[in-house]
Every structure is written in C-alpha cells, then in structure tokens.
C-alpha cells in the first residue's frame, strides 16, 4: 500500500514542476488515445472508481471516530469494537484508493497532456500540499488502526481518539484541495480568459471559486451517506455468511448502524444540494438552466427514481427490522400508510416537467407542458413530495426507536400528543406552501421551499429532543432479538449500497457534464473527438461499469480483510442501557440468542 501511495504521490510531484509543464504545453499533442473506451472513457472510469474509494475512506473515519467516542464516554466496549471494525475496512480500502489515484494521474498526464500541464501550472503548490497531506493521512490511519489495542486505556485512549480526529482533519483538507481542481474547471474565476497565461492566475482565486465550498459541504455529507451504505452492505454480507448466532447478531447490529448513518445523512443531503444548485445558477444562469432544464433535464427524473428507491428500501429495512423488536406489533398498521405516502411521493417527484421538446412533441401535448403531468411536475409539487417523504422516513425511525420502550415519565401521553401535533403541523405547513406555490410567481415560489424545509427540520429536532427526555428511564417491553432478521432484509442493504453508488456516479456525471464541451467552462475548450457530452443512456452504461468495478474490488478487498482478522462478535445477552446510544436513543443493542 505504501508503495502505491508513494507511486501516486511521486508521479504527481514529477508532473507538477511548472517549468516542465510549460514545455509540455507548448510541445505535447493535445490529446492521447486509449483503446476500446477512448481517452474520455478511460479518465471517466479512473476518476469515478477513484472517487468511490475516496468517498469511502473519507466517509467511514467520520463515523468511526464518533462511534469510538460513544464507546469511550458511554463506557460501552461494543462501540469500541464496532469502530475498530469500521477502521479495519478502511485500511484495506485505502490502498485501492491510492492505486486508482495513481491510475487517474497516469491517464490524465498521458491522454490529456496539454490540459494537464495547464492545470498543474495553476495548481502546482496545492498539489504539493495534497501529496504531503496524503502521506500524513496514511500514517495517521496506520497509527490509528494498529495502535487500537495498544492505546486502549486512560489517557492513551483519548490520544488514540485524537488520532481519529486528526485522520478526519487531514482527509477533509485533502478532499477540499482536490475539489478545488474540479470546481475550477466548472466555475473558473470571472476574470479568467482563454488567453490568460496560467502562471499569472492567482492560486487562491482559482481555489476559492464559486462552487468550491458548496461542493465541499455536499461531498462531506455524501461521503458519510456512502460510507454508511457500503458498511451496511459489508455487514449484510457477513450476516449472511455467519455461522454462529453471536456473529449474526453482531453483523445485524452493524448493518443497522450502517443503514441508520446512510439514511440519517441522506436526509440532510438535499439541503446541501439546494445550496450547490443555487451557487451554480448564481455563477452562470445558462449553466444552471442547462443542468435543470436543458439536455440534462431527464437526469433529474432518474435521480428522483433512485432516491425513491433509497427511501423505500431504507424504510423497508426498518419495517422488517421491527419484526425482531417486542412491542413493535402496535405500530405495524401504520406501515401501509407510510408506504402509500412514500410511493405517491416518489411518483410525484419523478414526474417530468420542463423537458426539451421539439415542435411535433409540443403540438402533440397541446403546449409546452403536459396538461395533467405538467401540474405535478412543478417544483411546488416536487418539494412537497420530498419533504413529506423525509417526514415519513423520520416517523419510521421514531417508531422503530420507540418500539420496545415504555415511557415512565408522568407527561408521556402529553409528550406523545405534542410529537403527533408537531408532525401534523409540519406536514400542514409543507402542504400549505406546496399548494400556495401554484398561485404566486416563480421567484416567490422558490422562497417557499425554505419554509417547507424549515418546517421539516424544526419538527425533526423538536420531536427527537422531546423523545430523549421522554424516554429517560423507560422500561423495556423486551430485548431486541438481534440476528433474527430474514435474509431479504440484508439483500435490501445491498440494493441500498448499489443505489447510493450509482446515484453518486449519476451526480458526478451531472456536475461534470454541465461544463459541456469545455475543459474549463467558457475558458478552455475541449477540442478532442469526445468533447460532446453523451446522452443519459451511454452515461448510465458507463456509470454501471464503474459501479461493477468498484463492487468487484470491494468484494475482493473485504474478503481479504476477512482473512486477516476474525471479526470480534460482541458479548451475547448484554442489555445495558446507554444514554449515548448511537441509534438516536433506540433501545441499546441487546445481543440475544434466538431461543431467548
């Protein structure tokens, strides 16, 4: 792994000497060729697979260190073991990240030499810092993982936790630096022209471009979502391969935690997406319109379909999981209604509206919009649908969390009624602004989405806050029977992981594709034979190839990891309660044998 990291970094450094870059710019042919998939296909695959591994190794440390902290401050050793298992996956996935990073540098330098030289001339110093931090991150990870059992007690454990925090800090800076390169291509500084000599471009103005910070935040959250989903799939595989009840219970719990992290962070992700979209529009209206209403308009229908699958599958996993929780039976009648809301929400969200239509199509529809679907396809309907889906998913989590709990506080009934009222009020506000949006101008309507989002967020925080107090000292209706999950629930975790990964590829295509035939938007034109931006079909095929490569490698890597260390199953029969329970206050993990 070290060799791979050193190789990648070495190549980076070699390619970045500005003087050399200038010579390359002057003499190198603009483009190289690659067999079978062409130059762009090669870069696409290398960048996408690298990004998938990078997202995993950046996302997992974020929740690994939180889980470790819960173990330390909650005094519960199970969380410590879980955090270590998360980190073990990191160690094996890290080398793949470095290898694909090196491949990406190779293909860029050999297939796009002139543009690569242009980029390196501008960003050389930041690339040096990147390489240095990459080493720092690698060694911090080794210390963090291999020092786990050595620095286990007292102050040394806290130092170990500090290593985990440092690992996240290095990783985040590395990601921010890499993001500056790609966002520069998307939204270069306004004073940059085609004839601007790259050595005269100020580094900070190139880094701090219009979409840099929105992409940073969006990716930070998306990495957590992605990491949680892949960890969930890993746990599902181990669950299905388990030979003992203890192992099955452990991986059932791990899968639940992975799903909780993925879906929990997914709920926040659209808000970061709104910000990014807004910044794209502010940077260049035409780019924003190309993205949302131009040749990419169908992409958002596919995205809505995928997110619908995520919500439905995530909720399905929870609903199946309620089968192993004593007391959950009382909530089962509500499931069909929640399913109905999710299905209707998905249908509305996936309704096309602003599409590029030719004159014949417009004539056939009787206007630029479909007479019926056009009403559902507008943002008012879509925002209403997605906010109600988020509320419903949150309700699923709440019911799951409360399934086997019996509150003992005197105000429990009033508290539950207040929570119910919060849901009704929030849904009412979302619906009100959804309907009102049809009667106002577009610019006013856009502002309504903020009120809808706020109504949902306030409801989530209010209900959770109240629930934490209400469930203090709550008695149990029975221990969760971890491990007693049907296999189909675990397959749902695989669908989640594949869907998240595919969605990531799709969003990557959207972000990169809106530059259209420009390497650097409206500054450096792509004159290669593959300068056109493909339609969604060929793009989807490419994304699927990347996802297949990623999961094939992940499967192999995790299998290797499994050879190296036997998983540490947590003790069976533990029923201690923890106030700092990771599962947002759900009854703590009770590893109960099936016969219990």
């Amino acid at each position, binding site marked *: 792994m070290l060799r791979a990291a050193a190789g990648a970094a070495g190549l980076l450094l070699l390619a970045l000497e500005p003087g050399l870059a200038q010579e390359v710019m002057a003499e190198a042919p603009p483009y190289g060729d690659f067999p079978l998939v062409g130059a762009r296909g090669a870069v696409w695959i290398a960048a996408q697979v690298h990004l998938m591994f990078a997202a995993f190794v950046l996302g997992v440390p974020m929740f690994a260190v939180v889980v470790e902290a819960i173990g330390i401050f909650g005094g519960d050793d199970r969380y410590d073991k879980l955090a270590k298992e998360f980190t073990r996956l990191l160690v094996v996935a890290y080398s793949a990240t470095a290898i694909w990073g090196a491949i990406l540098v190779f293909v860029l330098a050999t297939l796009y030499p002139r543009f690569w030289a242009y980029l390196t001339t501008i960003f050389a110093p930041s690339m040096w810092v990147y390489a240095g931090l990459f080493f720092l991150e690698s060694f911090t990870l080794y210390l963090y993982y291999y020092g786990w059992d050595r620095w286990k007690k007292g102050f040394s454990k806290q130092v170990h936790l500090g290593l985990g925090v440092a690992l996240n800090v290095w990783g985040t800076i590395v990601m921010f630096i890499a993001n500056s390169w790609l966002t520069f291509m998307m939204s270069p500084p306004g004073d940059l022209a085609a004839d601007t000599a790259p050595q005269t471009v100020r580094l900070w103005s190139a880094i701090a471009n219009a979409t840099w910070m929105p992409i940073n935040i969006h990716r930070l959250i998306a990495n957590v979502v992605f990491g949680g989903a892949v960890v969930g799939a890993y746990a599902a595989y181990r669950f299905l391969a388990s030979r003992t009840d203890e192992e099955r219970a452990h991986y059932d719990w791990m899968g639940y935690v992975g799903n909780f992290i993925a879906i929990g962070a997914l709920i926040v992700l659209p808000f970061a997406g709104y910000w990014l979209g807004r910044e794209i529009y502010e940077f260049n209206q035409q780019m924003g319109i190309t993205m949302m209403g131009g040749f990419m308009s169908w992409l958002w229908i596919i995205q809505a379909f995928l997110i619908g699958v995520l919500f439905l599958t995530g909720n399905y996993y929870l609903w199946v999981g309620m089968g192993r929780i004593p007391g959950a039976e009382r909530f089962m009648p509500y499931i069909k209604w929640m399913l109905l809301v999710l299905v209707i929400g998905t249908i509305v969200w996936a309704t096309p509206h602003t599409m*590029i239509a030719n004159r014949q199509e417009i004539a056939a529809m009787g206007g630029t919009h479909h007479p019926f679907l056009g009403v559902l396809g507008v943002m008012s309907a879509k925002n209403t649908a997605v906010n109600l889906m988020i509320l419903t998913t949150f309700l699923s989590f709440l019911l799951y969390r409360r399934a086997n709990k019996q509150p003992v506080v005197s105000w429990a009934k009033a508290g539950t009624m207040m929570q119910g009222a919060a849901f009704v009020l929030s849904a009412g506000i979302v619906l009100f602004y959804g309907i009102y949006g049809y009667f106002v101008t577009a610019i006013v309507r856009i502002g309504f989405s903020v009120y809808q989002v706020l109504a949902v967020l306030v409801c989530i925080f209010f209900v959770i806050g109240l629930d934490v107090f209400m469930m203090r000292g709550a008695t149990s209706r029975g221990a969760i029977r971890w491990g007693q999950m049907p296999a189909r629930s675990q397959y749902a975790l695989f669908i989640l992981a594949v869907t998240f990964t595919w969605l990531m590829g799709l969003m990557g295509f959207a972000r990169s594709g809106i530059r259209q035939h420009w390497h650097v938007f409206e500054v450096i034109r792509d004159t290669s034979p593959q300068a056109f*931006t493909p339609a969604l079909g060929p793009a989807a095929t490419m994304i699927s190839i990347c996802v297949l490569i990623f999961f094939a490698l992940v499967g192999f890597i995790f299998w290797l990891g499994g050879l190296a260390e036997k998983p540490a199953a947590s003790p069976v029969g533990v029923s201690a309660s923890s106030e700092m329970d990771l599962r947002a206050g759900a009854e703590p993990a009770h590893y109960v044998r099936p016969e219990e």
Partner: protein
Amino acid sequence: MLRTNLTILLIVIGTLAVYTGVANMIPQVASEVPEETTIGADVTPDELAAIGEELYVGAGGCTACHGLGTRAPDLVGVSGTTCATRREGVGCKEYLYESLTEPGVFVIDGFQPIMPDMRRILSEAQIWALVAFLQNQGGEITVTAADIPPEGAGGAAAAAGGTGGTGGATSPGIDTAVTDPVELLRASTCLACHQLGEEGVALGPSFDEMAGRQEAEYIRRSILLPNADTAGGFEAVAGTMPMNFGDQLSAAQLEAIVRFLAGDR
C-alpha cells in the same frame, strides 16, 4: 454460501440493469459540440436561416429557455413579426443582433435578465445566422453575407479547435477615449439594470442612492466581481450582472465610474 453469493451477484447486477435500462429507455439528448460554421460570400438568406435553425435547436442552447413559456419569450413563429417594434428607432436586424450580443440593453417586461452574451458561445457568423433564422419567424430576412465579418474576426467558435487550449471570447471593449462616467455607464449598458436620474431600469440597486453610501472599494469590487456581494433586497437578481466589465473598461474608465458612483460628482 455459494447460493448466497450468487443471489448477491444477481441482486447487484439486476439493480444495475434496471437503472441502466431505465436510463436508456428515456429520450436520449446529447450535448453536441458547436460546429465551426463556414459561411461563404455567396450565402443566400435561406441558407443562413437554415444554419441559424440548427444553432437554435442545437449548439446555441436557445431551446433551454425560449419556447418553454416561462423563462424567456417564445420566438418560433413570432420573432420576425415583433422584432421591428420592440425598441423604438431600432430596426429588426439591429434589435435581434443586440439581443444576442448585448442582452442586458433591453429586457422584455415580465422576464428576468438571464440571457447570456452569445459571443461567449458562438462565432460572429453563427450569431448572424441566428438573426436570419429569427427574422424568418414571420418576417423577412434582411441579413446578407455583407453583414458577416471576415473569418477570424473574433468570437469563441472562431478561436476554437486545434489548440486544445483556447476558446473563450474576448469581450469587446469600450472606446478608451470616453472618460465621462455617465457616458461610460450608458456605453457599458449599466443603465439596462440600474437607474440614474430619469434614465435606466430599476432592476438592480439605484445609482442615485449609491452616492455617499458605498465605499469606493465596495463599488470597484461590485463592478469587477459582481457576485462577491449582494445588495440587500436584490437577492432575487443576484448573479445576473455580467462579469466582463473588467475586460470592457480601461483602468482609467473603471476609476472614473467608481469615483462617480462613490459620490465624487
């Protein structure tokens, strides 16, 4: 375990197949690279209009807004009939050319000033072809080959190709002899969005209220980097101010405007 592995493999491939299949079933729209248009001296009006139509539905990206009814005016079938009367004293051909190259000068009531300067995307010849196409929508084509400047006279597409490293358009400058700030504000089309006395449109902050309230530094930054700050109450039009004034004005002209707006009148 073999059965479990096969089931997982089937689920992964099946899920990917569904997504790939759905994406391949929907209408396929690619974004093609704008082709360099070679227009000879003997080009006929109809040929120009045909080239313009291709650009309108393709490389120009016009259909992203026009024809959808909400973002920008419908043009197909009507633009040739309305172009001569949109602006008093401005002929059809001149109006359409101005709309494509200086879209901020005149914005039709009820629409936002979101139209980009097409010189950043298309060559001069292509822009004239678009004008011919738009005139042909219910009107008479008056564009001729004589309107089209010789090849290499400028424009993004003219500069494209071969180098892999160039392509952006350079914004046309304002006559450097002009130093009067009010004249500069007019020439730079600032009054298309800002009010100055009786002149201009109140889309952005009024120049009259700016004097003595904003520091020169702030005004300078707002001209060169319009997205750096957004004046309170104008969030809805944030991001619409062109970012090419730094290219259009000389340093002396910029400073003349800054001093004027900061209150040194």
